[in-house]
């Protein structure tokens, strides 16, 4: 194991984060605050409570998940796509670094960044609404699992993408709708019955439900189902990454 290489990639990617601190941290925090203002204060004042918690409080876990999902995907996809685009990937390919080590460095950095971001948003939310995390262990577990899974997913997109449009298209067309429809802003129970069934095909529902449960013990689906779907998606991403490694897909000529 070339642990120095993993470290070098990790630190290099993290350095990129610090350099672009404004867009990497400030903008998600700002947009989350806007969500609070719009959904929490404006709309929330008309919705009294959902399953015993105020609307503003209810949406916090969903908002954090929303940011973690989109940020993990965009960080990780950009992290590996950019060297491909600029040509600096030659160095990674010519270095004594296994594909696994590269994934560890890139995905590790992207996931770390999302986790830090999630915690920052949590702290921001604290300023707006009273919060109580009933199961901190599960909260962190879901946070880390989601960040790692979607960073892997982003890595795959970054490897697959042949241009900037393709890099954007999956987050825009798949991730964003799934998260918006994934119960960030409402409980699945509030949907008409038919749509509740449809919603259960959305994996994000399970992530948000599990995450929200760790806060308030409110969930749309059981904790086991949430954990199972999350781990299942993680397994699919890992298998895909392994397949990319086996075939050298789109990284080498």
């Amino acid at each position, binding site marked *: 194991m*070339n642990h*120095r*290489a993993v*470290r*070098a*990639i990790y*630190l*290099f990617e993290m*350095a*990129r984060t610090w*350099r672009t601190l404004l867009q990497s941290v400030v903008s998600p925090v700002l947009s989350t605050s806007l969500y609070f203002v719009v959904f929490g204060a404006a709309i929330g004042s008309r919705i009294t409570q959902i399953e015993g918690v105020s609307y503003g409080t209810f949406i916090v876990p969903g908002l954090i998940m929303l940011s973690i999902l989109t940020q993990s995907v965009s960080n990780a996809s950009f992290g590996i796509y950019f060297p491909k685009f*600029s*040509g*600096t990937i*030659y*160095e*990674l*390919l*010519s*270095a*004594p*670094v*296994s594909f696994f080590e590269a994934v560890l460095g890139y995905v590790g950095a992207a996931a770390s960044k999302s986790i830090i971001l999630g915690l920052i948003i949590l702290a921001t939310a604290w300023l707006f609404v009273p919060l109580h995390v009933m199961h901190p262990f599960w909260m962190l577990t879901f946070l880390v699992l989601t960040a790692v899974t979607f960073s892997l997913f982003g890595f795959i997109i970054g490897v697959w993408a042949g241009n900037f449009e393709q890099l954007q298209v999956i987050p825009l067309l798949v991730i964003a709708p799934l998260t918006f429809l994934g119960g960030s802003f409402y409980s699945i129970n509030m949907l008409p019955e038919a749509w509740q069934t449809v919603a259960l095909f959305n994996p994000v529902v399970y992530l948000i439900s599990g995450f929200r449960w760790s806060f308030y013990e409110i969930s749309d689906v059981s904790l086991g189902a949430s954990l199972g779907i999350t781990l299942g998606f993680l397994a699919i991403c890992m298998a895909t990454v392994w397949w990319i490694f086996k075939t*050298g897909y789109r990284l*080498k*000529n």
Partner: protein
Amino acid sequence: MPPIISISHLSKTYGSGLKALNDVSLDIDRGEIFALLGPNGAGKTTLISIICGIANPSAGQVLVDGHDNVADYRAARSMIGLVPQELHTDAFETVWATVSYSRGLFGKKANPAYIEKVLRDLSLWDRKDSRIITLSGGMKRRVMIAKALSHEPQILFLDEPTAGVDVELRKGMWEVVRALRATGVTIILTTHYIEEAEEMADRIGVINKGEIILVEQKAALMQKLGKKQLKLHLLGTVEAIPPQLADYNLALSEGGSQLIYTYDSKAERTGITGLLAALREAGIRFHDLDTTQSSLEDIFVSLVRA
């Protein structure tokens, strides 16, 4: 000693169906400077990319110091530093950060003193804290060389290292390359500046249309293919070459004011003495003479045209 790089029956067909390399076999000797010459699109970069692990071969094998560069890629790649032809650098990192990163990537323990030496040797020390985007093209090229040297490779690939580098710095780079060779590093370089190969290389390989058409010690190559010419500046002009000189390989030029004799410099008898005697007999007098030897460039051009 076994060769440090042994390439056997390497072929490469790109996805487009283009055959960039066709059954290339080549050995690189330990500690030599090997210049790979060939016209645009000959397959030089493709060959280097496969050896370094950037492209997959379609067929054939590469051994780097006995390590298969695919099966045992860690051992193989650890030995190699690569300066690619295209300027692919980070933009917002500093010179110091990007060079240190390369060292880490190759699994080497951090060694600031060594990196300082590399940067100083390449006249980059005073720019170490500059972001790469603020450097000139020639400086970026040197940053790429510094990155390749950062992990103390035993083999260095330089794919057109001096393209876009000014004359003085080019000489400086040659010095760096020579100093590296003196420490035992094997160097493989490609260049379109033939005089660079002539100046630097121990051995020369010529590749054309994906095939190695010649590999030779530079000195032997120059001698073997080197034609010499004796140019006689005549007093007055000659209409035609007199029949008694027909046995000599002569040509008239400059409107009959010059007589050019082409001969083989490595031959036992060059025939110069005889020619001069014959000239005197024919009453042709000259006021000056000089000899020229064909350069590597002439040799190269004639090879690739053939």
